[in-house]
């Protein structure tokens, strides 16, 4: 069994880890993140355990799960998991865990919505996509929840394509040589039935949440821990009525699918980052030659076809 990580502070000082190229110093243990090996620079992101107010005073955005203060601080909370307060510069997250929350639960939302807010505040572009290495480039496969991103990530990983990200692909649009994907962590979230279709048992895997039949599959071997230039963005489609294969979408269609490509797209409205995020999305589509679409592969033959198309995408 994967040991359950207690959500309390680590006994031997803060965890020193890396996420998307950032140095993360955290009072919350973050076992899925690789250790920081980049030397003694100050933390890019500090994660502390502490009090988070129930209400941000004079909140300009009061939403069921998200509040934003006039100074840009953002609060995200789920009653059974905890509350998170993200500083306006995206350099600090304070977590107030709920009484019975597990570390797995707290990290699930830390690496989801909360880290997306950090990305917005730091000028990074989070895509709702998994991402694999093809040759010396990165290719991202985007789409709504349930479309099959994690299954695609795990399948391509088993076929020898190193993984950079499972559900959230973070892109640095300000890298000197064009957009680069910043590697996340070596885990893929999969429901039991998806794991079983991949021939994997859930035995020994940690559950995403105690009451969900959804697990973390570790992919330590074959994780790409260095950033790579982004060569293509492909939106996965579940609809069996579209033709198989990868198609380049007309520009207007590509723009229209923003909600399916960006991670938590309406966060930009709450945070006031829409001008920056939209501009980055336009630049992204320009730099990868437009958005492509792929009917999600289901049969071994369809997987072979997709694999055969990958080199051209990264070309």
């Amino acid at each position: 069994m994967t040991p359950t990580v207690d959500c309390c502070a680590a006994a031997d000082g803060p965890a020193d880890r890396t996420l998307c190229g950032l140095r993360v110093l955290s009072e919350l243990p973050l076992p899925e993140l690789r250790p920081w090996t980049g030397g003694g620079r100050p933390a890019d992101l500090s994660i502390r355990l502490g009090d988070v107010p129930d209400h941000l005073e004079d909140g300009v955005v009061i939403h069921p799960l998200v509040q934003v203060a006039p100074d840009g601080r953002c609060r995200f909370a789920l009653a059974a998991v905890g509350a998170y307060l993200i500083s306006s510069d995206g350099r600090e997250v304070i977590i107030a865990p709920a009484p019975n929350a597990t570390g797995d639960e707290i990290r699930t939302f830390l690496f989801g919505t909360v880290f997306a807010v950090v990305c917005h505040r730091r000028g990074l572009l989070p895509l709702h996509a998994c991402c694999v290495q093809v040759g010396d480039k990165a290719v991202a496969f985007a789409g709504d929840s349930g479309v099959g991103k994690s299954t695609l990530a795990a399948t391509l990983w088993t076929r020898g394509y190193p993984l950079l990200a499972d559900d959230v692909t973070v892109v640095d649009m300000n890298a000197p040589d064009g957009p680069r994907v910043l590697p996340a962590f070596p885990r893929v979230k999969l429901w039991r039935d998806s794991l079983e279709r991949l021939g994997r048992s859930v035995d020994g895997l940690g559950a995403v949440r105690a009451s969900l039949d959804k697990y973390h599959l570790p992919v330590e071997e074959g994780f790409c821990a260095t950033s790579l230039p982004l060569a293509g963005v492909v939106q996965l489609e579940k609809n069996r009525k579209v033709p198989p294969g990868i198609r380049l979408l007309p520009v207007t269609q590509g723009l229209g699918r923003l909600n399916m490509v960006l991670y938590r797209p309406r966060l930009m409205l709450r945070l006031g980052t829409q001008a920056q995020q939209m501009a980055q999305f336009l630049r992204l589509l320009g730099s990868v030659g437009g958005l492509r679409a792929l009917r999600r592969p289901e049969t071994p033959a369809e997987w072979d076809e997709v694999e055969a198309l990958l080199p051209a995408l990264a070309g």
Partner: protein
Amino acid sequence: MGGFYWIASYPKSGNTWMRLMLASLIDGAPPDFSKAIGFAGAVGSVTDMDLYLDVESSDLTPVEQAELRHDLALVTAAAAAKPQFRKVHDRWGHTPTGRPLFPPKVTLGSVYLVRDPRDVAVSWAHHSGLSLDASIAFLGQSGAVVAKSGRWKDQFEQRLDSWSCHVASWLEADPTPLLVAYERLSADPAGVLANVAAHCGIAASDAAVAGAVAATQFDRLRREEETHGFDLGQRRGRAFFRRGRAGGWRDTLSAAQADRIVQDHGPMMARLGYI
């Protein structure tokens, strides 16, 4: 600010037919099954919650999902510029903390379709792959749900309860829905559709109503399904549009099976004039 028209029913009671009629009326064109049907998507969609509540809702527990459906309705209505239509199979009711699942303050109107439970039982058996006896038991089951959580689904778990409880919950809903009997819809589709359109604030001429009725005749829908397919959660390999007849149970259910449904649901069947 938008708001919702809920097109509600127990499953297999004419909900999809009604939505196709309304879509056809609004579009002025017959349904095209070669494309995904975009009108009146299911309430409680995972994609909607992800988008409007800024969270990976498949990482939420069923209780959290159920609780946040109230918030989702409010936020979605506030974000929309015009009225929204949604398909509903939930019973009318409340979230775990007692907030309305279909908040009256964002409800512009509801249409509740009801059908003789003997026909529903036969149709549900075909749709779900259950035996007739198991289907009859399902209709009588307190606490029955569809889209049961436990694996990935594009919809959240929906509580039906028994057929009688489902009907009772909607008859007492706030605001009171327009009650539409499947049997009357079959007998007089144009008259019923005109009523529903008026209830939902859709201006429609008699000719437009007649056009929508013609475009959604059962045989036409079945031909479209044969040509293009139509997947709405029915058991794999089975037709969605099966028979479309009122009273078809008479040549399918045994006398004992029909009696059992009357035993389970007699008072509500009597109230609705089915017995």
